[in-house]
């Protein structure tokens, strides 16, 4: 008989149960299969009622994040062979309410992402008309924020963050990192517009620098670094305000 591997999957079907349960499925073990392949096999061949999110299957779309043996991972990038022959436990991302099975409710993140204004904001009157072309930037200016622009909104960093799990008012790693990505962009003037939220108690000061957000990031964004750097620049702002109050820019 061909080799198999067991997956213990978090099931929550609100129409028939008020508490989640775990169901174990046995699937073929193939060297080149990732956890998502195994879940797709379950859906297609064993239990069509299993619900989960996925799309690109190549670590770009950020839809298929789940907890694999307690660690947030993209299920399309977690190989079965790294766990074989042990059982693999699959759960929805920690810190988010569960909609159904492996599907988390992500409205909170989407709202926060919008609030952080992750787009280029120009000073009033400094927006160029389209026919004047793009805002130019040197490679050195690009290098300053490029790593932070690699975020795919997969929310693994939120699932790794114990602060967010304990207090969901925290703006969280990805949203702050994206705010920082635009703050550090030479073409952007929107820092002060974002600062109210970023420098609030629910923003950077809630972070205790556990650092796991960066450890689990599939795109090496390093949100923990983005948050700490925002703390430094907010502190510098505060000192400037106190020491040279007359030097305040409008």
């Amino acid at each position: 008989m061909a080799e198999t591997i067991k997956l213990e999957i978090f099931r929550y079907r609100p129409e028939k149960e008020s508490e989640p349960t775990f169901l174990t499925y046995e699937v073929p073990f193939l060297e080149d299969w990732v956890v998502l392949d195994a879940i797709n096999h379950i859906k297609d061949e064993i239990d069509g009622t299993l619900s989960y999110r996925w799309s690109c299957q190549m670590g770009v779309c950020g839809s298929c994040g789940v907890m694999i043996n307690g660690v947030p991972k993209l299920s399309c990038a977690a190989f079965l062979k790294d766990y074989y022959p042990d059982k693999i436990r699959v759960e929805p991302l920690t810190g988010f309410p569960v909609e159904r099975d492996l599907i988390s409710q992500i409205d909170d993140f989407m709202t926060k992402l919008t609030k952080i204004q992750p787009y280029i904001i120009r000073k009033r009157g400094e927006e160029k008309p389209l026919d004047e072309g793009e805002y130019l930037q040197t490679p050195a200016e690009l290098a300053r924020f490029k790593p932070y622009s690699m975020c795919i909104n997969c929310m693994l960093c939120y699932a790794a963050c114990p602060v967010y799990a304990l207090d969901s008012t925290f703006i969280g790693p990805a949203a702050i990192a994206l705010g920082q990505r635009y703050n550090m962009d030479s073409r952007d003037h929107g820092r002060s517009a974002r600062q109210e939220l970023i420098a609030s108690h629910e923003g950077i000061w809630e972070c205790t620098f556990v650092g796991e957000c960066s450890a689990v990031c599939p795109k090496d964004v390093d949100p923990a670094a983005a948050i700490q750097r925002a703390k430094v620049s907010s502190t510098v702002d505060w000192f400037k305000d106190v020491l040279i109050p007359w030097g305040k820019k409008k």
Partner: protein
Amino acid sequence: MGEKEMSAYHRPVPNTWWLKRTPYVLFMLRELTSIFVAGYCVFLLILVYKLTQGADAYGNFIDALKSPSSIALHFITLAFVLYHTITWFNLTPKILVLYKGEEQIPKALVAGVFYTGWVVVSIVVALLVLGM
């Protein structure tokens, strides 16, 4: 939204969440080190205070420090303070990101400056204490 909220399952976070994964345990340990750092600062203040109380008071205090329990506590504190210093020094390059043109200055170099500073200060202190 209302109906959606009602059906969503909120998983409780147990107080033991930090025991579930090694990185969380190490983080809690790092947080704990601050107690030892603060404690040792208080100890140094007491030491200075005893110095102001005269030679006898200072001498008695120093004698009390020679007890096995005091020496053991000092070793434990040393271990925690070392862990504190090393973990924070290793995190420094994340915060202090420097560029030379398009190239980021290597993280090891940034941390290296801190370690070098640590060694230099330690040597100076050792020389002062040993009265050389």
